């Protein structure tokens, strides 16, 4: 998993003020705009990053199923938002048409803006990969936004939180490809950087960082290894067995009823999931007598999912809950050849009923 022969020349060491420098260089030298987790008003939301004070550097999330607290610390993992908010906006006017269909307007894409995703997490990066394959070019809104991202800077997790299980889903807590720069906080001050592209290398060289010493690299690798292990010991069976078992048991109504017994169908898990992509089209007429098609987030846990005129394809909640799990673990692989869940644990954290996806999967495969 981790290469034992340590190559120290790939790593640089600095401190959190180098992050500020990094932000400034990206903004000023490269003229990029930065999007990322933003600390604002006691919460971590998503937004434009203008300087180090926007980053959640001195908070840490403590989570349990159905519980999230921000407290002082330096290990921020994630919040209920994710890059999905930027790539696939939660409500967006897609098209405006006149009533004789002679005119149509879509939102203006500002193609000249180059964004950098700053400080996203390894699971987020993987989630973007999932979305790329799942929606990619099909949805122009997504495609445009995706193209406007010129670089990705990842913050790796050396201490994942209680609900993280990216290890077993092979999507964290560190990154090996598809990024430009990645950094990790060795402690509250020291930051270790690595690059993943030539652009990343160029930018890093401008930071004038010190090349990492062997001890630091060793410390980093040791911590990543531990973190990977911690987030891997989750399921009772191998992924292949899980997938087979889930499919075999798909018709076991009693089992799924039991697994979904605490669910109230509020849909929070869908909305916080960085790979859930379903949209609801809403049609309306605006004040200028134009027909508007708006795309809103929706999700398979909502009653409206599968509801059709005069009937319902998934009237029972258990079928929708089952779809959520089957989709992430079985259908995504069949659709895009990779798992749909990146193990970020958001659905576990933000479920008001504290339902734990890991437990549900375990129950499903053993029950």
């Amino acid at each position, binding site marked *: 998993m981790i290469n034992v022969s340590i190559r120290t020349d790939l790593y640089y060491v600095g401190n959190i003020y180098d992050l500020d420098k990094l932000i400034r260089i990206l903004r000023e030298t490269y003229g990029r705009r930065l999007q990322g987790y933003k600390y604002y008003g006691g919460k971590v939301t998503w937004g434009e990053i203008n300087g180090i004070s926007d980053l959640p550097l001195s908070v840490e999330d403590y989570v349990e199923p159905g519980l999230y607290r921000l407290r002082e610390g330096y290990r921020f993992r994630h919040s209920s938002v994710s890059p999905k908010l930027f790539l696939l906006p939660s409500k967006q006017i897609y098209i405006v048409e006149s009533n004789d269909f002679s005119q149509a307007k879509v939102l203006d894409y500002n193609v000249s803006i180059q964004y950098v995703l700053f400080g996203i997490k390894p699971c987020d990066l993987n989630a973007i990969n999932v979305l790329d394959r799942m929606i990619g070019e099909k*949805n122009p*809104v997504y495609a445009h936004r995706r*193209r406007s991202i010129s670089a990705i800077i990842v913050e790796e997790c050396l201490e994942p939180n209680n609900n993280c299980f990216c290890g077993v889903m092979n999507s964290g807590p560190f990154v090996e490809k598809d990024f430009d720069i990645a950094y990790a906080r060795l402690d509250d001050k020291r930051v270790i950087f690595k690059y993943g592209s030539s652009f990343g290398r160029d930018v890093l060289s401008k930071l004038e960082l010190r090349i990492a010493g062997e001890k630091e690299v060793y410390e980093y690798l040791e911590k990543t290894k531990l973190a990977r292990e911690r987030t891997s010991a989750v399921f009772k069976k191998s992924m292949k067995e899980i997938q087979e078992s889930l499919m075999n048991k798909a018709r076991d109504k009693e089992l799924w009823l039991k697994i979904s017994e605490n669910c109230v169908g509020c849909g929070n898990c869908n909305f916080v999931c960085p790979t859930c992509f379903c949209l*609801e089209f809403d*049609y309306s007429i605006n004040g200028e007598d134009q027909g508007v098609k708006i795309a809103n987030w929706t999700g398979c846990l909502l009653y409206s999912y599968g509801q*059709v*005129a005069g009937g319902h394809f998934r009237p029972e909640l258990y079928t929708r809950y089952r779809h959520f799990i089957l989709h992430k673990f079985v259908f995504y692989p069949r659709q895009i050849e990779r798992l749909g869940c990146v193990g970020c644990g958001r659905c576990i954290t933000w479920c008001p009923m504290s339902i734990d996806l890991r437990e549900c999967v375990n129950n499903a495969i053993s029950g």
Partner: protein
Amino acid sequence: MQVVNLIEVLKSKKAIVVRTIDEAPGVKTFALKLSGEYDIKPGQFSMLYYWGIGEAPISLANLPLKTGSSTIIEHTVRSTGVVTNTIVENARIGSVLGVRGPYGKGWPLEKHENMNIVIVAGGIGLAPLRPVIKYIEKNREKYKDVYLLYGARTPADMLYKYEHESYSRMPGVKVLLSSDVRVEGWSHHVGFVTDLVKYVDVRTEETVAYVCGPEVMMRVAVKKLLDKGFRKDNIFLSLERRMRCGVGICGTCQFGHYFVCRDGPVFSYSEIEDYLWIEGV
């Protein structure tokens, strides 16, 4: 690289209603005139847009007719919800509707030349199969025996009643009808349309079946066809799922790992065998 524009994906074309036909209570057929080409095939569907109210996926109900610079297509709409009610109630000759499409994969008619074709349709399910009949009519020599098994709740609910005779007048075409309930004057079968499968007399290895109707009916049909010896990959079903965009971005039409709008709506039974028997998949 040029990214596709939302206009190309979501803009509706203007379609003028040129003819309406009352088919059954709450069901109407609309002939729509679009300017330019609209290359839609049997089994494919359009998103019909009643401006300001919403869109609904509706199957092609007749072969498209090209006239000079425009195309006339037909769609049969049953009023069941917000959009369809509005269309059925308000659209009349001269009305403007929006049309997006064509979408989806149709019936693989070209692949099935020189085969027998068994059509099993229930209720509104005849709409997507009518262009199949019309296609066969036009290309009668390419296909062998044809069966049309059609059932509805009552004879009055049947679509295209005015054409049934002409179907049976086609050489080598057998039309078997069925009504769920007994009605005075009805001389055909009473019961489910799937009961009619037993009257089909063909060599199954040279035969394909096209099935469309309510999901329960399709399941029974599949069982009976399999019992009769049909090969799994010779049975084709047109599925229905809740659908918003028609182009694979909204995700609400998923059926197992398929997107009904792009991977379907027509599937061979062998493709969906895994899922068809799971309640609510």
